[in-house]
């Protein structure tokens, strides 16, 4: 490839042809300010903050302009600064300045720009659009009066997830990002994955905050409040406190949760192991009895919302297993309650998830056992961090503690549920040994690891080769579903995770889940798996005990009642009785 030599602010630099000015400037240690630009997304050039002077009197956006040989670029001229500041002033004049109350306070990209430019005075008259907040659903809040129209959420919704709920409408000052016909999210086929909340540079899209609900439960002396934490949270929550992405902080989270006042701190990895037992046996049962194949995993709630909404004809392919979160909840109100001799109504089950769709999942009417909600409150990683901060816990320096028993005894197979390919790998570790009765020589199924959109592997089960696939990101899932739809799929078992990278890239994870950060978190998860004494779900002694004491056997009667569920097609106008969650705002929409 040809190289281009350019001059940026009197400094010469040589970069390959096709490099953007933005990238080239980084080479000479100049970080041109950006706002709509996102490292994982296409160039949009619609915020117009990154303008630089490429010829006297000519400004071009650094994000979208490729370097030309011999170019002289000025990033600090009066014209550049005046224009950048002017653009920022224009954004501010239309942006609510309630930063101190904003959920993104301190993590807002617009706030950062304002810090850089220090606009203390503007002659513009503020005109903030008075737009109604959409709090219609249990997962995501859309406050589009704060929207700066960068279009990042649209790209993630349309291109990465392929659900295309968010789009733009109207023009000029009425231009806005909205679902079609300005419906509320609950009245669309939104899967509540929350990826939009993760890419939003400001506070226009965010998780529904349930921390107060949890605080109130913790303050209630009549409640026995227990908590489970998902595998992906332990390698990401440290970021909220300044740790590097992928840093394993399991023991610190456990300790912090105890300081917050939870009566017992458990691990969702335990029910991940349980899921493998149930799902693995379900797969074998389907293979042996000629059931619907390929079977597809069901632990990702965003994915369940997707298939229910977009491919209802394929629901038979879903494993009937509840997700680990819900299995945990069901056991907490039955097995665990009985063990502690507590009435299920006295138990308040909280889960800490990397996910906004988990909030919706917990509200589903199928998700109750004997009249009690499986899970009472779901907090995302970000919300837990908020609670820890508000309790003044010195997170990074807190002494590590261990999970409580019995739901704290886990294996490496449970941990890797947090990454794309993990459920598949965990299932293969167990299914292989159950079928062949031989011990696996190598536990690492490298074919199903990594960030490639769709991964395939073939496993030999006693002379029968079975072909499996792993997809993450719904646009990849869509490709696999289309194959099944056309009768062209030769897979036996498929893992689908709604979010790119799996749960470590979930919509409830700390802000800044770029692909690079996701990779670090994935590394963190596999590091945890590697050092676990037990790495196969069926070897988990607590799971074995659970079957002996309570469940009987996988796919048994009690399992069926507590750990399995059913699915039904979703229509755009959802039945409000369908959600236990009662929301008046949603009902006010015509």
């Amino acid at each position, binding site marked *: 490839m040809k190289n281009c030599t350019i001059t940026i602010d009197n400094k010469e630099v040589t970069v390959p042809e096709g490099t953007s000015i933005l990238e080239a400037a980084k080479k000479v240690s100049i970080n041109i300010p950006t706002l709509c630009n996102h490292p994982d997304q296409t*160039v*949009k*050039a*619609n*915020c*117009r*903050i990154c*303008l630089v002077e490429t010829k006297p009197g000519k*400004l071009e956006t650094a994000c*979208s302009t*490729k370097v030309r040989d011999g170019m002289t670029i000025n990033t600090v001229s009066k*014209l550049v600064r*005046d*224009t950048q500041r*002017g*653009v920022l002033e*224009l*954004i501010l*004049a*239309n942006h609510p300045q309630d930063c101190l109350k904003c959920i993104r306070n301190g993590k807002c990209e617009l706030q950062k720009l304002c810090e850089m430019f220090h606009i203390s005075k503007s*002659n*513009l*008259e503020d*005109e903030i659009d008075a737009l109604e907040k959409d709090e219609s659903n249990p997962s995501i809040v859309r406050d589009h009066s704060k929207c*700066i*129209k960068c279009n990042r959420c649209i790209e993630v919704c349309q291109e990465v997830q392929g659900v295309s709920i968010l789009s*733009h409408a*109207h*023009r*000029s*000052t*009425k*231009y806005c990002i909205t679902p079609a016909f300005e419906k509320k999210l609950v009245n669309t086929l939104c899967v509540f994955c929350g990826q939009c909340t993760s890419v939003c540079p400001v506070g226009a899209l965010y998780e529904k905050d349930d921390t107060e609900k949890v605080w109130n439960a913790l303050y209630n002396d009549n409640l026995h409040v227990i908590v489970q934490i998902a595998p992906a949270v332990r390698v990401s929550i440290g970021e909220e406190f300044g740790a590097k992405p992928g840093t394993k902080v399991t023991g610190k989270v456990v300790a912090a949760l105890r300081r917050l006042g939870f009566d017992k701190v458990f691990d969702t990895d335990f029910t991940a192991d349980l899921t493998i037992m149930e799902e693995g046996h379900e797969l074998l049962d389907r293979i042996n009895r000629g059931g619907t194949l390929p079977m597809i995993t069901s632990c990702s709630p965003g994915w369940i919302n997707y298939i229910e909404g977009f491919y209802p004809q394929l629901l038979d392919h879903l494993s009937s297993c509840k997700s680990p979160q819900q299995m945990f909840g069901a056991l907490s109100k039955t097995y665990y309650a009985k063990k502690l001799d507590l009435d299920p109504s006295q138990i308040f089950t909280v889960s800490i998830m990397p996910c906004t769709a988990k909030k919706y999942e917990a509200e589903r009417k199928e998700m109750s056992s004997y009249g009690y909600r499986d899970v009472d409150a779901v907090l995302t990683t970000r919300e837990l961090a908020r609670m820890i901060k508000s309790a003044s816990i010195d997170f990074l320096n807190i002494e590590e503690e261990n999970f409580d028993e019995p739901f704290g005894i886990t294996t490496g197979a449970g941990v890797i549920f947090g990454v794309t390919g993990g459920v598949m790998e965990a299932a293969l570790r167990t299914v292989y040994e159950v079928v062949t009765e031989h011990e696996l020589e190598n536990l690492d199924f490298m074919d199903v690891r990594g960030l490639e959109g769709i991964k395939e592997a073939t496993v030999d089960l006693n002379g029968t080769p079975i072909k499996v696939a792993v997809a993450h990101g719904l646009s990849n899932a869509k490709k696999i579903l289309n194959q099944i739809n056309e009768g062209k799929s030769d897979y036996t078992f498929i893992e689908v995770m709604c979010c790119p990278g799996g749960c470590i890239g979930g919509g409830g994870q700390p802000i800044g889940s770029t692909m690079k950060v996701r990779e670090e978190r994935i590394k963190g998860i596999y590091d945890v798996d590697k050092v676990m004494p037990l790495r196969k779900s069926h070897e988990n002694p607590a799971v074995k005990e659970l079957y002996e004491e309570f469940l009987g056997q996988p796919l048994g009667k009690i399992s069926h009642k507590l750990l399995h569920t059913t699915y039904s097609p979703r229509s755009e106008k959802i039945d409000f009785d369908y959600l236990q969650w009662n929301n008046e705002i949603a009902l006010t929409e015509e």
Partner: protein
Amino acid sequence: MNRTVNIISKNFKKYNPESIEEYLELGGFEALKKAIEMGPQEIISTLKTSGLKGRGGAAFSTGRKWEYSANVKGDKKFIICNADEGEPATFKDRYLLEYDPFKVIEGMIIAAYTTGSTDGYIYIREEYKYLHNKVRKAIELAEKHGFLGKNILGSGLNFNIKVVSGAGAYVCGESTALIESIEGKSGRPRLKLTRTSKQGLFGLPTLVNNVETLAAVPPILEMGVEEYIKYGTHTSKGTKLISLCGNVNKPGAYEVPFGITLREIIYDIGGGIKDGKQLKFLQLGGASGAIIPAKLIDIKYCYEDLEEHGASVGSGAILVADETNKVTHFLKSVQDFFIHESCGKCTPCREGNRQLTKIINRFVTGNASVEDLKTVEKFANVMKYASFCGLGQTAPTALLTAIKYFPVEFYQQIDRIRKTS
């Protein structure tokens, strides 16, 4: 004295546009035949010699544009005739489509032959609804007579034309927004990472030309480029269709040679100012064009001389305003137009127009402050330098030129109390 010329407008009202025979009698499609004899290379060099520039407003060399397109390889290539004519005070393309649709079609076929294109679209603005079927009819007749379809006139060229329309957004006159609109998307400009000539409509090579540009090609070929460049100035060659309107006695679309003075246009062609009033200013090139005070009407109407005064030919609109018009009130009407038509995609245009509208309204009601004048100029410049597409970049042109030529009018509207404070 008649200062108009008849090159592009030669056939206006001379034939019934529903009869291709009458067009043929007037020498129709002779240019196409000549073009086929010349071959693409010669056509391109002829156009380069002719100095023909994009007549929609951007004024890019047509010869060079066609050359780029001809050099792009592709089995399917598009030609789009931009008949979105949304620029306020502009109506010359309407005349062309209404009175000489075959010439536009002929121009498109020559473009297709030159660039090796296979499919043509005429994007006619929604508001010209009555023309849609008339042009479709003309296409149908051309097809029947073998000027469209397979192996046109034995040249080996296969080419068809469709008429399309959008939903009436001004921004769709911008070529990438127009392309988005044809693709069925909402009309917003696209980020051009590659030239439209390489990746345009449906991601395929596309040539977009204004109606008048295409209609100018047949006469140039027919009369010969030497004859054509006798019109105009040394650097602005040939003729231009203008849309003369406002406070003049004889508004209308006229063809003038470049180099004619604005005075000649207004007084000789337009018959002077209505009701014997005094001329105050002109707006050239539509709502996105500059405001020129009466004292400058002796400048020549050509690309270079206008540019010297911060104005441009643009679409060819000449809006005449007499002494009764207040500049600030006029700017309000311009601003009302742009705040309605901004697509909202980029910050400077969306928010800039919002703020400009507020401030200009204060000037209209006499509540403006001294700061307002500075602020409005500052943000007009932000829009000019920072906007995503031509709409936002040129929306503040009228305002900026008005501040330059009529500063007093702004001061008169500044609130006295606030002025002294």
